[in-house]
């Protein structure tokens, strides 16, 4: 959906998918404020996703994100939109199989570090190597 708003001769255009427009209230001026918050017209992209190269201007144009990492990169601006179209900003439903909350990952990281130092002390390098790989993965996940 393509919306245009004219205030004091200044034209602002917003491009949203149909459901966002419907839920955000296409006639609601805050949709335009959101668009301005995401990217001022004619300006250079302010935020770029380092993972996929998607910019705030791309979001303004498409109304959709580039990749899962964009959710972190554009997080603050998206909160505004989520508050408008969603019930609450926090997920309360299902999780993928094997998913553990962050706190559990942190606990596991600490435990793995401890286990590794013990393994090194015992010169059990096979176990230590396995734990090192796990620690690397956990650190990356928690980053």
């Amino acid at each position, binding site marked *: 959906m393509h919306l245009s708003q004219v205030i004091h001769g200044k034209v602002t255009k917003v491009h949203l*998918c*149909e*459901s*966002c427009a*419907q*839920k955000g209230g296409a006639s609601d001026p805050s949709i335009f404020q959101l668009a301005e918050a995401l990217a001022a017209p004619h300006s250079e992209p302010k935020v770029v996703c380092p993972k*996929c190269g*998607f910019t705030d201007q*791309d979001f303004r144009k*498409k*109304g*959709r*994100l*580039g*990749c*899962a990492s964009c*959710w*972190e990169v554009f997080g603050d601006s*998206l909160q505004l*939109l*989520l508050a408008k*179209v*969603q*019930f*609450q*900003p*926090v*997920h*309360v*439903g*299902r*999780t*993928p*199989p*094997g*998913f553990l*909350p*962050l706190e559990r990952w942190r606990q596991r990281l600490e435990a793995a570090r401890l286990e590794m130092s013990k393994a090194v002390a015992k010169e059990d390098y096979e176990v230590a190597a396995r734990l090192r790989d796990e620690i690397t993965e956990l650190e990356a996940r928690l980053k």
Partner: protein
Amino acid sequence: MSIDEILTSEVSEEHQPIVLSTRIRLARNLDGQPFPGWAKAPQRKEVADLCVDALHQLQRLRKGHVLRMGDLPDLERAVLVERHLVSKELAAGKSGAAVISRDQTVSVMINEEDHLRVQVLRPGWHLRGTWNLAEQLDDAIGAYLKIAFHERLGYLTACPTNVGTGLRASAMVHLPGLCMAGHMEKVTRALSQDGLAVRGWLGEGTEAAGNIFQISNQQTLGLSEEAILHHLSTWIKNLVEQEWNARRKLALDEGEKFIDRLARSLGVLRSARLLTSAEAMNLLSHLRLACDLGCLPEVLRAQVDRLMIEGQPAHIQAKAGEALDSNGRDARRAKALREALRDFPEITEPTV
């Protein structure tokens, strides 16, 4: 899957009054891959291959049909849309694919707006069973593919309106009573104020031909799947009750005028030489209503449902074996309906 197989398959084995079908859709994406709308062609191809391989591991889809949109002619894609097996968006792109179970209950769309759109579609109103199957499929898919998930935001999707549960639960409902009574605008307003969307027969952006509407949840984040299903279920029960009330009131208040309206629809369908798909849908809607009220034998409802599907533009052309202009389609449609309804009994007084 050949198009003939779809055309000859039964529309459904169950034909309830009012609720035509129940649908659950889950939006899922692969971790570390750009979303389809932003990905380059080779990345989309890689995702499609990964997803097809994983889906083939699932018991339910092991013998399923793999349909790559780029390989299908326009007409076949349009038939899939009319059967609600794929969305218009998926059919419009070349890099989309769908894996469809043999019984056509499960259709997983690949590279639509999200990498995966897991759909379970069942005739009649069976929210619990439909959800249970979707949940099983979701778990099974999660065992083969790493799904993008965020602790606070839930399942990550391309559009902010799907994030969280990624769940869209919907019912396809036939509401001629509420439409005739002029209540539909009020109902739509009440539903949308309470977080439910009302759409037409073929989903987003389509018209409500044949008094058929798709009712679904709007919000996906901050509500559990249970809460979403419960909310929809409460409203559908309420709507079904309101629809029956509207029908009874119309039959009672209008009497002969009401029966005349249904009988005229049968008359037009039996003798028209040209019928657009919207007009045919609206007339068939009256016949479906007549079956529900006992003005026609109830067993004929299944036949009316089949005629509604087979009267869609792509179905008409697929059956004719050639592309037809709108005039050609309208003539074919009218002819098929004349023949199908030639031996239909006359409309009688309602028994319900």
